[in-house]
């Protein structure tokens, strides 16, 4: 017996066709629930992926630095004979210590040989004021070896103007972030002054403009040669504050960071930890998204529940006669469960299609978003996982929404119906 010949499916289909309008409304409920889920989850996740990519591209997988000037235990507490007593040191100042990585060159050599590492870049950062004529902006200079830096952060790819290698060939070259260049009114080839906290002023020539995509970074950052950064800070040629490390596999960053921390004695911060606050926000964002979607699907579940209850009240005599001629309780359950599942299966498929279409259409509209991150188009994560999750969840909701009335229908007492006529 083919499946369409089965009386249960036949009866279910006839019921649904007899109630076309309600059936369509119930299907639309499931369809919109799923479509909205796929759209919103794809949007959220796409945004998060963009953001993670951009931050991963601008923060090192592991950043090794000297955590100087942090709170330190008072010297009194380190004296054994005073243990257990109440100690009080008022107004303790941080130790005067430069945040420098000693033996930076040797550490870099060791790291470059590490098989987990695909790139190492020394870094010297400082606050600075950029001046061009009367326009002045505060920001940060990043003193780097631009070739190594490029391996880590793809600087060249993000350059909108100029070649990064100019930083090596032109002794006083500077690459400005896009926002920073805008606000200074600086163009390629212009000369600007860079003033450091150490009181040094360098006249530098704009050899490149860079857009990382993270608005805040582009408004404040400028790349200069490591040597120039050391000049600005009046420090010697081995002075660096950070070593940035790129890994072959970013997922081992956390474990390796601990290793390096022990090995080199400097703070090693992995990218996940560095962006922990953002991942926290993402978690809450995801939770809200899922809650909204789940409530939409539950509402459509009530829709299905409703239409089935209507059908059942109307079809009481049919149920009674089916039971009288020998259909079992579970056959009756199957009839109405099939009806709700048909609504779920068809509505769900339509929803998958609509959600996918919405992603494609909205994703192809040029948006030019400039905010937290800047992107030209909205990006959607069309991962099959979302589609599968949405569909399975919709089927579960419709199955539950169908099972309750179906059970009720199977418990109808045939005699009550037949005798009350």
């Amino acid at each position, binding site marked *: *017996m083919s499946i369409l*010949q089965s*009386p249960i499916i*036949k*009866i279910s289909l*006839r*019921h649904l*066709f*007899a109630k076309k309008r309600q059936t369509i409304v119930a299907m639309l409920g499931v369809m919109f629930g799923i479509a909205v889920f796929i759209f919103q989850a794809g949007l959220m996740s796409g945004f998060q992926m963009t953001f993670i990519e951009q931050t991963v591209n601008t923060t090192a997988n592991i950043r090794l630095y000297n955590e100087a000037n942090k709170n330190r235990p008072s010297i009194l507490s380190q004296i054994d004979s005073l243990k257990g007593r109440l100690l009080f040191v008022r107004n303790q100042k941080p130790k005067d210590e430069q945040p420098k990585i000693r033996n930076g060159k040797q550490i870099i050599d060791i790291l470059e040989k590490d098989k987990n590492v695909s790139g190492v870049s020394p870094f010297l950062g400082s606050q600075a004021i950029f001046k061009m004529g009367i326009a002045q902006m505060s920001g940060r200079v990043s003193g780097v070896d631009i070739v190594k830096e490029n391996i880590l952060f793809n600087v060249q790819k993000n350059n909108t103007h100029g070649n990064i290698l100019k930083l090596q060939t032109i002794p006083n070259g500077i690459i400005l972030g896009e926002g920073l260049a805008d606000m200074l009114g600086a163009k390629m080839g212009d000369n600007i002054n860079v003033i450091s906290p150490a009181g040094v002023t360098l006249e530098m020539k704009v050899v490149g403009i860079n857009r990382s995509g993270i608005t805040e970074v582009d408004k404040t950052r400028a790349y200069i040669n490591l040597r120039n950064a050391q000049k600005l800070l009046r420090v010697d040629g081995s002075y660096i504050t950070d070593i940035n490390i790129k890994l072959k596999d970013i997922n081992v960053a956390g474990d390796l960071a601990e290793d390096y921390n022990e090995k080199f004695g400097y703070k090693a911060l992995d990218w996940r930890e560095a962006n922990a606050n953002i991942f926290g926000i993402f978690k809450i964002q995801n939770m809200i998204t899922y809650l909204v979607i789940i409530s939409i699907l539950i509402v459509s579940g009530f829709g299905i529940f409703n239409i089935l209850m209507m059908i059942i009240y109307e079809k009481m*005599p*049919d149920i*009674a*006669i*089916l*039971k*009288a*001629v*020998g*259909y*079992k*309780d579970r*056959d009756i359950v199957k009839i109405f469960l099939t009806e709700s599942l048909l609504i779920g299966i068809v509505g769900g498929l339509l929803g998958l299609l609509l959600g996918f279409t919405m992603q494609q259409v909205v994703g192809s509209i040029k948006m030019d978003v400039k905010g937290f991150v800047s992107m030209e188009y909205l990006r959607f994560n069309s991962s099959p996982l979302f589609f599968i999750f949405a569909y399975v969840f919709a089927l579960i909701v419709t199955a539950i929404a169908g099972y309750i009335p179906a059970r009720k229908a199977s418990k109808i007492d*045939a*005699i009550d119906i*037949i*005798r009350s*006529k």
Partner: protein
Amino acid sequence: MTTVKNIIETKNLNKFFHDPVEFQALKGVNVSVKQGEFAAIVGASGSGKSTLLYVLSTLDTDYTGNIYFDGDNLSLQSKDQLAAIRNEKIGFVFQFHYLLPEFTVLENVAMPAIKLGRYSQEQIDDLAMEKLKMLGLEDQAYKRANKLSGGQQQRVAIARALINDPKIIMGDEPTGNLDSKNSEIVFDILKELKEKYNQSILIVTHDMNFANKTDRIITLRDGEVQNQ
């Protein structure tokens, strides 16, 4: 007298209703219907005649005492087993036809046979057609059930009752909703079934005209059998 076996037989059947007040609807009923017998249960309203039929039909399981149907003790069967017995061995005709309105006449007649699953779809369709022919309804087979007249619908219901060649046909006021002409037709059909096919039939009716034409009248009064 030759020994004709009882198709259905009750032993000390009691039935209580608890709602709204405790009420004994059947009081120690002992009745039987023989193979090939056309019997009618009569009685005033409230006498328990319909109640008795529904207990015999296996739809109502809330009773005490024993019912033997075609050799089985019904009180020992599970709900699903009873459903299977109804499907295979009992044909029902009610006062109202209870045809499924979305289905054709043929599909309605075939419904119990599909559940039984003994034959292929084609065989079932042929069988259903055969039953419809027997009742003079072959030209209505592909119409929707709700497009037929009341008398025709009741005949379709009889065809449906016959589809699995049941051991017994049970009817609850099968002519209650019909005019005298159609009542006549339904009675003649039942009579013919008994005579031609030795079909056992048990009908509840308050129509004495109908009852008097049957083989045997079982009279119920206040839940007790007066004569049979």
